[in-house]
């Protein structure tokens, strides 16, 4: 009995049922189907986790999809330690978000559609983590991209929402193109798409080069970088991070599920899964580490000045994903996955709590909030816990995983380890700072909205607050599974993942480890303290500072002008070319025939051909006869 198959296929069944019968039959009962199936998946995932803990790793082909000589693609599943952890994250956090959505989406006219898409999304995400070959990975990869497009643009009547959906989809396409090329390169190199033979054979190809446009390129570096391009898109790293903040146009549960707990982590998962390939290329590892570390600091600094509550959390997500990549890049994959796991809890919690706030005030601007803690105590407390966890305050989940990353980068022995460590330590200051800036502006002080709004402030219903409480528990204790040895823990998660991800050689003494931990903790706490000074005690200070350091302030406030830069170097030239050159010059003649003109120029051709179809039988007979004569002449003469 292949019980594990229930994990992805229960949500798929929920999608099919909801999309077929949701509109007319199930309507506002859709959540029963979606929620019960994902909880079912979660239960099976837990059982599977225990199986894996007991040493039962599954790697089997269900059936072969396409066979033709050497080309052989199968549908198969691999459930090892890495997958088991991912399953818990996706189905566990997913279940709570599904339940929360019942309250949040209540009364929406696309209610059944929302749950159908959520279920479909979870199906693809589960396929992505469960596949035993690159084709299934690719299927899940594209599938989650498609679903995110549906869900970000869920309120498609709103132009900004449907634009954000398109932006997410198109931006990711850049990365996905590289990813697809990477998968093709893997097939060409290894002749198979299955993980196990690819990863065992990979070392035989180390150092081998291929000729690319006249340059000799290291084969493994090429493959790794192509795969990483996909991760950069999906996990919103520089330079493809621009879609994620805009994706906040989607309903908040979507932000929590897709843009915090699951989809964006696909890139980190993929890099960890392909670690045998990445390990063979120093260039690829440096690229991963530096991209991650720079993105992390970059996003963290932007997060300090945003006023949209969901965008702050979105930048925080980008920053945390950057940390995970930084860990992977120095070889500490397990630390990265550990952080992915704890991050899922506190980040989903931050989003859902933000959703609860938005549910009450009906806008996202934290400058127009304040003092909410007395109206929404549960939301306040849970979000506070999430911020503590995210900020890396000792004792909570986020602290242990972040500490693992910071220590790994310091002690990894990677030539760029120290550089990455410095950036990570800087991030350790900004993360608690922007988290608590958000908390203080939202919940403390006096309410800065209108009287009318104040009148409507209320705590969210239990269907929303219960998931918050459960996630808060997760944000506190989830990380305890990975308490490092020097604090008396067993570092269980890291050891658990070791068979798949290996273990980096860390060079450092206990004293150093304590020192690093103490330093980052001090920095984190100082971040909270400074936030408190700025936004609770001396509230004039941010304004003064903003005026003093006007250029820095504006650069950060405008997100380093990346959107403007893209607008300047890509979108505007593209539009300019489109408008002046294409429209004014070639459009009517050439390009129309290629892009816009498939209908017109092929259509014109079609129109001519269509005229041959006169309707006269005699003409038809003549054409047949001519055809015969031409063939005879062609063959016989």
């Amino acid at each position, binding site marked *: 009995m292949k019980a594990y198959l229930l994990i992805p296929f229960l949500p798929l069944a929920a999608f099919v049922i909801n999309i077929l019968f949701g509109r007319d039959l199930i309507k506002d009962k859709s959540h029963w189907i979606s929620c019960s199936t994902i909880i079912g998946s979660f239960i099976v995932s837990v059982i599977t986790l225990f199986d894996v803990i007991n040493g039962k790793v599954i790697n089997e082909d269900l059936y072969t*999809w396409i066979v033709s000589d050497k080309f052989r693609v199968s549908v198969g599943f691999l459930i090892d330690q890495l997958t088991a952890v991912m399953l818990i994250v996706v189905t566990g956090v997913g279940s709570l978000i599904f339940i929360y959505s019942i309250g949040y989406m209540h009364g929406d006219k696309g209610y059944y559609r929302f749950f159908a898409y959520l279920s479909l999304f979870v199906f693809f995400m589960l396929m992505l983590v469960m596949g035993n070959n690159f084709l299934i990975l690719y299927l899940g990869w594209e599938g989650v991209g498609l679903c995110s497009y549906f869900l970000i643009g869920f309120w498609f009547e709103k132009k900004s929402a449907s634009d954000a959906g398109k932006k997410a989809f198109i931006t990711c396409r850049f990365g996905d193109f590289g990813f697809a090329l990477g998968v093709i390169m893997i097939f060409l190199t290894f002749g198979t798409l299955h993980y196990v033979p690819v990863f065992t054979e990979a070392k035989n190809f180390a150092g081998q080069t291929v000729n690319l446009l006249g340059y000799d390129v290291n084969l493994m570096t090429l493959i790794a970088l192509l795969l990483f391009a996909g991760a950069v898109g999906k996990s919103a790293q520089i330079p493809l991070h621009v879609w994620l903040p805009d994706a906040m146009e989607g309903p908040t549960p979507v932000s929590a599920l897709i843009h915090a707990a699951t989809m964006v982590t696909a890139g980190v998962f993929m890099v960890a899964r392909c670690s045998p390939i990445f390990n063979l290329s120093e260039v690829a590892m440096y690229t991963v580490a530096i991209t991650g570390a720079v993105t992390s600091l970059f996003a963290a600094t932007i997060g300090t000045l945003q006023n949209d509550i969901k965008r702050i959390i979105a930048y925080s997500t980008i920053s945390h994903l950057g940390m995970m990549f930084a860990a992977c890049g120095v070889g500490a994959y397990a630390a990265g996955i550990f952080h992915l796991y704890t991050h899922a809890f506190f980040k989903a919690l931050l989003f859902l709590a933000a959703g609860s706030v938005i549910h009450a005030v009906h806008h996202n601007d934290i400058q127009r909030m304040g003092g909410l803690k007395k109206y929404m105590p549960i939301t306040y407390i849970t979000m506070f816990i999430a911020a503590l966890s995210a900020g890396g305050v000792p004792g909570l989940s986020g602290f242990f995983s972040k500490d693992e990353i910071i220590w790994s980068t310091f002690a990894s022995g990677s030539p760029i380890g120290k550089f990455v460590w410095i950036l990570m330590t800087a991030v350790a200051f900004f993360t608690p700072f922007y988290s608590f800036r958000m908390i203080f502006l939202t919940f403390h002080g006096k309410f800065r909205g209108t009287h009318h709004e104040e009148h409507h402030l209320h705590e969210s219903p239990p269907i929303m607050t219960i998931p918050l409480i459960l996630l808060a528990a997760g944000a506190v204790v989830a990380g305890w599974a990975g308490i490092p040895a020097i604090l008396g823990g067993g570092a269980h998660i890291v050891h658990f993942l070791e068979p798949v991800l290996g273990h980096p050689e860390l060079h450092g003494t206990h004293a150093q480890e304590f020192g690093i931990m103490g330093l980052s903790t001090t920095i984190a706490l100082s971040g909270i303290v400074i936030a408190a000074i700025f936004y609770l005690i001396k509230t004039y200070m941010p304004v003064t500072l903003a005026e003093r350091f006007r250029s820095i302030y504006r650069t950060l406030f405008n997100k380093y002008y990346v959107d403007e830069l893209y607008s300047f170097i890509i979108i505007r030239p593209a539009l300019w070319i489109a408008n002046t050159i294409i429209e004014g010059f070639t459009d009517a003649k050439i390009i129309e025939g290629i892009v816009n003109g498939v209908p017109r120029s092929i259509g014109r051709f*079609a129109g001519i*051909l269509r005229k041959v*179809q006169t*309707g006269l039988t005699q003409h038809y007979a003549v054409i047949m006869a*001519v055809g*015969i004569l031409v063939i*005879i002449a062609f*063959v*016989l003469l």
Partner: protein
Amino acid sequence: MQLVMPDLNPVIPEILLTVLALILLMADLVIKRKETIAFLSIVSVAGVAYTLIGSAGTTFGGMFVSDGYSTFFKLIFLVNVILTILISVRYIVVENINFGEYYGLILFSTLGMMIMASAGDLIVLYLGLELMALSTYVLAGFIRHNVKSNEAALKYFLLGAFSSAFLLYGMSMIYGLTGTTDLKAIATYISKNGLEGNKTLLLSMILFAVAFGFKIAAVPFHMWAPDAYEGAPTTITAFMSVGPKAAGFAVLGRVFMTAFGAIHVEWSVVLIPLAILSMCIGNVVAIAQTNIKRMLAYSSIAHAGYALLGVIAANNEGLASMMNYMLIYAFMNIGAFGIVILLRSEGFKGEDITDYEGLAKTHPLSAALMLIFMFSLTGIPPTAGFIGKLYVFMSAINAGYTWLVVIAVIFSVISAYFYLRIVMYMYMREPKVEVSLSTSPAIGLALTVTVVATLVIGVFPSVLVELARAAISRF
């Protein structure tokens, strides 16, 4: 002289179908409810399908061959006829052509196709071909009160007669050359006497290619198709676009592989331009169509082009992929026509592609089904259409025709434009006209079967692929 009773076992399905079709034709006098006749027809076909099992063998001195190859094609014909009957039940009422002989004619036409698939001799082949064609001509003109339908039938008939003449001419030549009409004997004679370069043989082969090219609607012998498809009752269009085409491929494969096996290089040279032209004209002209039946007619021409690649490969792998393609095409194309028929109601033709605007808002389920069929016709995974194309293309590549596959892929991309335009109309436009669907349990069943087959073959293709491979190994 002693009369020996031939072994009837291989022909039992055909005999049974003949008897049942005749009975049904007469039963029309006593049974007033035409739905009953439809039901009995399906039961009859199911019975015939049952007798197919264990009918393997050769009889009538090699004139009639029942092997894996013929059985696979008969399976396609029976699937085709059952689905056609299911989509017809309500439609012929709407069109006001609810006559009992409709089902009889469909069964006779199917009988003709089955005989074609089993023909081991040119005379039997011709017999089957004309039985199929004559019944189809009548069916194309079945809407007697409609000028377009009459026109379709007449054109189809005239040009069909034209092509039959070429076929007979080719047959007479080959008979004159080899003194036999038996396919295997022809092959033996050719190789024994070293006739590979013989001009008469080549000319005869070309004439066969023309006649079969007409049946499969390959360019430039496709001219009848758009007019006939548009004018014929939509159910018959669906029937014609699959059945006679598959039967044409069946005889093309058998005659060319068996009788003309020795000159496969020469006939590949003839078929390659037909394939390229079919893909080109079919896909490009489809773009300019505003009537969905005409659009699907051109699409059917293009699909003949793709399937021809399997024949051009000239080996068992290629033929197996062509057989797969025809079965897959049967499901997805009849499915698409099923939706076209759903839109036809009293006083509303529903044939203009703008009638599909906003269908997703008014009838989401039908729109979703149409979306799946359009994806499948385009060849997007995980639908059956992708599998069909993949195997045909792969067989052509393995046979060394990579350049031809490149052309085919380019035209597939072009085809996405007109298939996905329907999807775009359904999902991205606002409904302009009031569309009410002519639903019935029968068409519901047909659509369920076709969509399930389209998706299941797309996800689990190996059963079908293995079946076709096993079938071709007993050729």
